[in-house]
């Protein structure tokens, strides 16, 4: 007890959970590091993986040492498809050992799954989906983004998730982090067994990190018709395909393509909403995009009021023409 107390005394520091998949460090990690910097504390970065080497290599070549003080590497077979029980145990172990006062993640589904589970061990109330910090006040959207709550916390250990789309990536200049520390995973008692993953194979970038997004609504009419968005995305380059909830429910697009408060929250440089009327919960997921274009037959659709530019016309006429003309520019 006394040792723990001495070790923690007067020391405030932040542990950031690194998102990665298939051996690639996620861009969201570079963004939430920028958010974590606003907490003004020394930052440690945690990599939990069954094979951490390539992620650690990417960190060593991209993340400056003035941003991340040390990288904690927890390598364990069960982190191949990590579940909330073991990730929670690991983070609890590290907080107890190092006395971290903030634990920070992105809003990835992995983080959403385990962050509250570990917070409760410290009787802490997590502050999730944070979009900005003003001194000690956290801003987070509530009511599907129709209101922004300003939140303060008294918790001794704060558990915070940041929306990556609201933060820029860290500058990658200067000396890179070289302090790599291997962590021995202590509690490996598993409650949840991973059976399988069924991931959507796609040549497109992820919605939350893509430069551009083309999104389709129910007006597309069928899964086949969604392909015209594919062609537009290919012409633009670095473009992800999104969908409204109605389009996902109709089976035109996959579940994880849904943009909205209960799906993915995105903020690309350009968001093209094709045949999407713009339900409140959809707008909540994309209204922070830098430029919004709507292609819609109905000039009265709610999407028009948030779109910078709207073409009021038949999408089946506009989208192919736009694709063709963007291809011409890009040549």
């Amino acid at each position, binding site marked *: 007890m006394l040792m723990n107390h001495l070790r923690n005394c007067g020391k405030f520091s932040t542990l950031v959970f690194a998102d990665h998949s298939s051996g690639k460090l996620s861009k969201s990690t570079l963004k939430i590091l920028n958010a974590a910097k606003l907490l003004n504390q020394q930052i440690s970065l945690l990599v939990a993986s069954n094979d951490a080497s390539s992620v650690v290599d990417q960190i060593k070549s991209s993340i400056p040492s003035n941003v991340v003080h040390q990288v904690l590497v927890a390598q364990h077979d069960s982190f191949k*498809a990590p*579940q*909330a*029980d073991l990730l*929670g145990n690991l983070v609890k172990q590290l907080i107890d050992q190092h006395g971290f006062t903030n634990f920070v993640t992105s809003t990835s*589904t992995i983080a*959403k*799954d*385990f962050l*509250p*589970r*570990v*917070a*409760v*061990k410290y*009787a802490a*109330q*997590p502050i*999730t*989906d944070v979009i900005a910090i003003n001194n000690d006040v956290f801003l987070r*959207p*509530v*009511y*599907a*983004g*129709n*209101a922004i*709550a*300003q*939140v*303060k*916390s*008294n*918790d001794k250990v704060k558990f915070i998730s940041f929306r990556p789309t609201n933060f820029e990536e860290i500058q990658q200049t200067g000396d890179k982090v070289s302090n790599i520390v291997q962590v021995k995973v202590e509690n490996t008692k598993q*409650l*949840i*067994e*991973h059976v399988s*993953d069924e*991931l959507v194979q796609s040549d497109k970038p*992820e919605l939350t990190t893509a430069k551009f997004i083309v999104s389709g609504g129910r007006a597309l009419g069928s899964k086949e018709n969604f392909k015209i968005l594919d062609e537009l995305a290919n012409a633009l380059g670095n473009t992800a395909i999104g969908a409204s909830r109605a389009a996902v*429910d109709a089976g035109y697009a996959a*579940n*994880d393509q849904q943009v909205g408060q209960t799906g993915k929250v995105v903020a690309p*440089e*350009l968001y093209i909403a094709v045949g999407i009327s713009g339900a409140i919960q959809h707008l909540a997921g994309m209204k922070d995009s830098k430029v*919004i*274009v709507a292609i819609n037959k109905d*000039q009265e659709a709610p999407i*028009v*009021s*948030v779109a*910078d*530019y*709207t*073409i*009021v016309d038949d999408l089946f006429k506009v989208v192919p023409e*736009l694709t063709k*003309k*963007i291809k011409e520019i890009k040549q």
Partner: protein
Amino acid sequence: MKVLVAVKRVVDSGIKVRVKPDGIDLQGVKMTINPFCEIAVEEAVRLKEKKLIAEIVAVTIGPKQGAESLRHALALGADKAIHVTTEARIDQAVQPLDVANILAKLVERDNYNLVLMGKQSIDDDFNQTGQMLAGLLDWPQATFASNIQITDGIAQVIREIDGGLQTVKFKLPGVITCDLRLNQPRFASVPNIMKAKSKPLETIPLDKLGKLHNSIQITKTEAPAIRKGGAIVENVDVLIQKLRNEAKLF
């Protein structure tokens, strides 16, 4: 097997909320059962119809009007209900940490084998309570469920994760939080709505089970910045020109 289903009463998702500095204006606003909670109730009823569970108990925390959401759950097919009463605002002062603690007390009291709930409520949008309850009880959990199979005390759950779907399994007891595509809740029939009125409903004041932590304080609530849109462009050529010259995109 006994299932506890947590439900919350929230502002109807179709309502455009009025934002005031001390929170959303709830005066005279249409309230309904949180859509994700309704999916959790429906799933419990389906499990009971398959004879995989024997009893469904619905629970809510909140002011007296919260009983409406319990009656809704009873009309859909829950057997009994528990109303933990408080006058505190359930979209601000009653936080996931509080709800998880209260639910844990009820689980210990009544020995449930499974807790079903929505993945998040559409007021505070936290998406935490199920995970926190599982952490408190040291139970396995499956969040964002889009399919639930229960065989011989083992739950196999398909979860919606970034990039696709994931299947996990665990031995019950456990906590499962429900995503949108798990099921399509049924409409309560008039006879079932009538029947719900005579089903048992236990009322417990919140302070009998614990006190609110208030570990985070909402100091102010504001409307988000309004985006100025609305410009109509005549055709694709004008759009491309605007994107290049004004937005400087390509």
